[in-house]
């Protein structure tokens, strides 16, 4: 359950209050605090679901997101901010609140990939001249980290296939062992 840390934040209080009370949000928030601290705590507990979006249904108003613990369903409403980031196959962070047993999405944000230390990003435009040279002349190794199936159906010219699982088990023998300073370029199916 590490990925469902409960957060308590001021913006979330404001947002949840605005959703329920509209323009009179601030005064209602103050009244709530005075009336019942319990009520405010319940209304402002939010949690985050991070992972790949498995599906979005406008008819069921539900997003299915692949969490570390498995797929979870989060409902969205007209008040959900950032629905344009809820795209099947994309990685996202959904901040939600609980309404009974239901998870209600407050915001959907794109999950940006974090680069490991010492690794920098390469733009597609920077790769174009390297591909024109080819791996030998350009002195690089281009590695497709996706599973073998998508690689076979279409990959960047000159790329070799080393799915991430294979990299874990056999990476040492698959990379050039004599030139540790050779430029290695990795890519996959996008920022997931």
């Amino acid at each position, binding site marked *: 359950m590490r990925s469902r840390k409960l957060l308590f934040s001021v913006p979330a209080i404001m947002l949840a209050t605005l959703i329920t009370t509209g323009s009179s949000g601030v005064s209602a928030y103050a009244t709530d605090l005075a009336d019942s601290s319990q009520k405010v705590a319940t209304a402002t507990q939010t949690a985050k679901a991070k992972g790949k979006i*498995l*599906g979005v*249904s406008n*008819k*069921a*108003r*539900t997003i*299915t997101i*692949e969490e570390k613990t*498995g*797929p979870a*369903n989060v*409902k969205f409403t007209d008040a959900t901010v950032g629905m344009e980031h809820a795209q099947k196959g994309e990685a996202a962070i959904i901040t939600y609140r609980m309404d009974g*047993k239901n998870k209600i999405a407050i915001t959907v944000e794109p999950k940006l*990939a*974090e*680069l*490991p230390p*010492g*690794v*920098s*990003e*390469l*733009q*597609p*435009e920077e*790769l*174009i001249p390297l591909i024109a040279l080819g791996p030998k002349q350009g002195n690089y190794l281009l*590695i*497709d*980290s*996706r599973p073998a199936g998508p*690689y*076979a*159906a*279409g*990959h*960047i*010219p000159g790329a070799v296939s*080393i*799915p*991430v699982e294979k*990299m*874990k088990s056999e*990476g*040492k023998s698959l*990379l050039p062992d004599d030139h*540790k*300073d*050779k*430029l*290695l*370029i*990795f*890519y*996959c*199916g*996008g*920022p*997931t």
Partner: protein
Amino acid sequence: MSTSSAGLAGKLGYSSIKVMLKGAPGWKKAGQKLVASNDFVANGNAIILDLRPAPAAASGHIKGAVNIPAAELAEAEDNFPPSKAAPFVLYGEPADIKMAMKTLKDWGYKSISLVEGGLIGWQAAGNTLVTGPAASEINWVRKLEEGEVGLDDFNKVAAGKGTGRIILDVRNLDETADGMFSGAINIPLDELDDRLTELPKDKEILVHCSTGARAEMAHQTLKKSGLTSLFLVATVECEEGICTAEE
């Protein structure tokens, strides 16, 4: 995936590592092309399109290729499969390839790549060509995804012929008002999490909606809960109580 691999390479002592975060989709967006593996061209479940005029294709083409000359592509749309996931691999003149890629993309196809190096590259890699007229009709059948039930299998159960299998309809109430498959259970997708106990543990549950999107989402939920299920990717329509499922 690429960032984990890059991290592993860093741990192995490599000092010059970059990641193209935008990945294969970013490469395509930059106007660049992808190439297929030659083994995929020869043996994969793909549609190999030869875009040259018929006489050129007859004098030598890749075995299994379908010859649709670039000039005739636009009027051949009915010949193309309904599944937008159908993978295409193209070869021919560069200008024709460019035009064909745009046409296929406009028709909604998502997987389009090229034979690496065209026919010259194909032969240089040790592959041969076959002579004689090439096929002119696309004859491609989609392979089922993991967790997917075939349309024929589903229709058998819908006709009451399936033992040990039941149908779960995850459409909304306003959709099921026009009818449901006989014997089907209806639980709208947004109520599924709360109503899992209504489903049998000893049967295989075939999930459908109106297209397949919600069915796949429901399948994930059922699988996580330890239930056995498959999902249907098909267009389901109901009228006056009678439902049909079609590709």
